[in-house]
């Protein structure tokens, strides 16, 4: 199966409750597995009914996250990202 490459949207959070860390925003990785659906925490946090969203575990290389500053470029990091924070990376 082909690797699915995704990019975390490079958007701001404006002080609101969001579960997408800044260090991953704008970074590209591959989908490790698909999870969910899980309720959107950005709605739950404000006491709202929450939409169920797919969640993706995305694997990033340290080279992608930290560039030349990476401690070891081939080390990796995985995180769960809600679907609305991801876009296909093919366009890049």
């Amino acid at each position: 199966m082909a690797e699915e490459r995704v990019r975390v949207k490079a958007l701001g959070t404006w002080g609101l409750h969001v579960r997408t860390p800044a260090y991953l925003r704008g970074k590209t990785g591959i989908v490790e597995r698909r999870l969910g659906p899980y309720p959107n925490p950005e709605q739950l946090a404000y006491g709202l009914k929450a939409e169920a969203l797919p969640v993706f575990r995305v694997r990033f290389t340290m080279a992608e996250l930290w560039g030349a500053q990476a401690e070891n470029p081939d080390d990796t990091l995985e995180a769960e990202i809600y679907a609305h924070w991801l876009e296909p990376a093919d366009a890049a």
Partner: protein
Amino acid sequence: MPHDDPFEHTGMSPSGHPYRPDQDGPLTRFQAMEIAIRELLIEKGVTTEAEIAAAIAYMDTRSPAGGARVVARAWTDPEFRARLLADGSAAVLEMGFPIEALKLIVVENTPRLHNVVVCTLCSCYPRNLLGLPPDWYKQRAYRSRVVREPRRVLAEFGLTLPEGIQVRVHDSTADQRYIVLPMRPEGTEGWSEEDLAALVTRDCMIGVAVPRRPQ
């Protein structure tokens, strides 16, 4: 039994750690607030003394020993190991761990890969399997640094990894919780599950240590 009596909290704890120094000091506003909230919730019929005591007793039964039993079982039972890696929640439920809110992913160390777990945004931790997290897991230094310089952080914990091993950091950003399935130490062939479990510390399951056979 540790914590046999929830009202006796003086001196050193059963695990040999000191209790918080403010435990016996003057009442803090936060302690007063805990008392006030508890009494209001009871008066309003939201909860009861018994329900609160049961919740505390339940968390007191959660400890790294639970996770260690799971790891030892995975080391000795290949079919269980396969189930644990495929669906962590279902596999630990087999062992009697009630896991209501816990969606567990088990990540396996190999000779080529070392896993380590963090929550950079808050303090997500597999508390139903390992108990409450250590202080350092919730503090700024670990949360900030382990995603950027995991090898230096692991070295601070006394774990130096060769270049040939990939380090993989797991940031618990959403609904899953993580434990590391460490490698079984060499020279433990034929050991009982109980003896193997004794080698598996909490830090091994967070990924900042590896189990070692006693010399």
